[in-house]
């Protein structure tokens, strides 16, 4: 493999290999979150250049999608971003519904919102926990993971799976909120807040934490837009952009919530934005839950959709705000029961391509911090 590294280095950069140490990190490395691989050239501890290499989890989802029917493809969307599978499901369902030209009933929309925001909280919790672990703070991870187990419990009650949810279907949601949710949610809201508070107290004003995160790979907004950043990464740079506000889908325009933004685009801002977004998500769930309870019991959950889905010929693109940013599905239909082409626009793909630029000139240990703060999920990165 040594030779392989060398050839990669030779083809990727102008500087001579001999002058710097080539350091290969990954694809299996505790800090590389699955299957990521970065080939760096370092001068002492300083990174001269870093080249991410991806594709170690390329499973051919898009090709598979061309050979499955619209309904059969839904479970595969779970396996993209497995930290918040529900957001993927809903994004795909919305895209197909857009191609069909239908809108689901309000109750189903509220259910989707509640579940999606829960998934967002779970996703951010993992991110903050792992970021802590990678920077040497192990304790918050244990607090947050327990909290996440409770969210998984709710998913399990509602649609029967912990991780790969496959929630809902094209045209609606299969079940109402489970009865146990009504008891559980008030308690859970408090415990999520408590765990977040605890994390906040442990990390935010911690001297070591501040030293390791503030000012580490700061990125400016213009560059971020040019590189195609979306989601928390873009908001950390100070751009107020959230598809829930800007291009409202479902019923997001009826809720009252804030979009937190940062200033410097460094690791600390990214961490802070995630912490604040969890609080906003709780707010959204509360409002959605109140609206849900006002709905009559026999309000429909499903729109009538033919068993075999055949959208008319044409191509559409629909994007939602997933925990990582803009998650879009492009569907080209040729009028048959299988999509002619499915393209997934994963949010972290765009961020990760700028990784070399993000970490250039930083220390190796900051590379790890940067990587965890991006929240690269190999499943959606490689598809």
């Amino acid at each position, binding site marked *: 493999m040594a030779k392989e590294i060398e050839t990669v280095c030779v083809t990727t950069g102008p500087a001579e290999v001999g002058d710097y140490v080539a350091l290969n990190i990954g694809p299996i490395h505790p800090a590389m979150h699955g299957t990521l691989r970065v080939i760096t050239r370092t001068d002492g501890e300083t990174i001269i250049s870093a080249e991410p290499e991806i594709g170690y989890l390329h499973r*051919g989802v898009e090709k598979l999608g061309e050979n499955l029917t619209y309904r059969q493809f839904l479970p595969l969307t779970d396996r993209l971003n497995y930290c918040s599978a529900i957001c993927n499901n809903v994004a795909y369902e919305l895209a197909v519904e857009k191609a069909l030209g239908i809108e689901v009933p309000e109750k189903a929309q509220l259910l989707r919102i509640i579940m999606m925001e829960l998934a967002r909280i779970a996703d951010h919790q993992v991110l903050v926990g792992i970021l802590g672990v990678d920077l040497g703070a192990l304790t918050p991870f244990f607090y947050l993971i327990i909290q996440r187990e409770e969210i998984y419990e709710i998913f399990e009650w509602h649609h029967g799976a912990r991780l790969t949810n496959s929630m809902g279907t094209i045209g609606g949601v299969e079940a109402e909120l489970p009865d146990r949710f009504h008891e559980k949610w008030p308690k859970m809201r408090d415990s999520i807040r408590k765990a977040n508070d605890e994390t906040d107290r442990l990390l935010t004003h911690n001297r070591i934490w501040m030293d390791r995160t503030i000012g580490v790979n700061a990125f400016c907004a213009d560059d971020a837009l040019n590189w195609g950043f979306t989601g928390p990464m873009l908001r950390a740079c100070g751009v107020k952009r959230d598809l829930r506000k800007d291009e409202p889908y479902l019923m997001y325009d009826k809720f009252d919530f804030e979009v937190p933004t940062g200033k410097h685009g460094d690791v600390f801002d990214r961490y802070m934005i995630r912490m604040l977004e969890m609080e906003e998500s709780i707010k959204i769930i509360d409002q959605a839950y109140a609206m849900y309870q006002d709905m009559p019991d026999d309000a429909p959950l499903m729109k009538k959709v033919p068993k075999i889905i055949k959208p008319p010929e044409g191509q559409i693109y629909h994007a939602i705000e997933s925990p990582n940013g803009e998650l879009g599905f492009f569907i080209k239909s040729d009028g048959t029961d299988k999509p002619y082409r499915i393209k997934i626009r994963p949010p972290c793909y765009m961020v990760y391509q700028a990784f070399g630029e993000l970490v250039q000139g930083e220390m190796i240990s900051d590379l790890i911090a940067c990587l965890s703060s991006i929240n690269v999920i190999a499943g959606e990165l490689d598809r």
Partner: protein
Amino acid sequence: MNFQAIQGEGWLLCKAEQLINWGRSRSPWPFPYGTACCGIELMCALASGYDMARFGAERVAFTPRQCDVLIEAGTITKKMVPVLKRIYDQMAEPKWVIAVGACACTGGVFRTYSTQQGIGSIIPVDIYIPGCPPRPEGILYALLKLIDKIEADHPLYKKRQQVVEALEAGK
């Protein structure tokens, strides 16, 4: 495990193989090779809710040279195959492998051009866990099964067998 401890005199009476197996089965240090969704469930199994350390998998070894059990959780793509093989070859004997999830067992839902259809054709696997993904309980159960398997092993007999075979081949 039946030790005969003779009290007061510091004697312990058992078969050497039993002693070795006892030591091995009580501390299977895992190497978490999580590549995809199943890796997240493996993470849950290792973390506070389920706590795999209760069964001796206390130290999560992130280096292949200091681990006993390779827990392969997630899809292995054809691009990843040489890496997996290399990691397995780097592990010191005795070593065991647990394949977590449908992908690691058979390729799962991904019957495509870039997915390896099961890791069994690359490295020997001891325990297969079905499920997509299996629950953390499933992973714990697999670990217990592996412990059973280790306890039923005959390390010295196998070693002797190897030596005999090598001698015979030398003649």
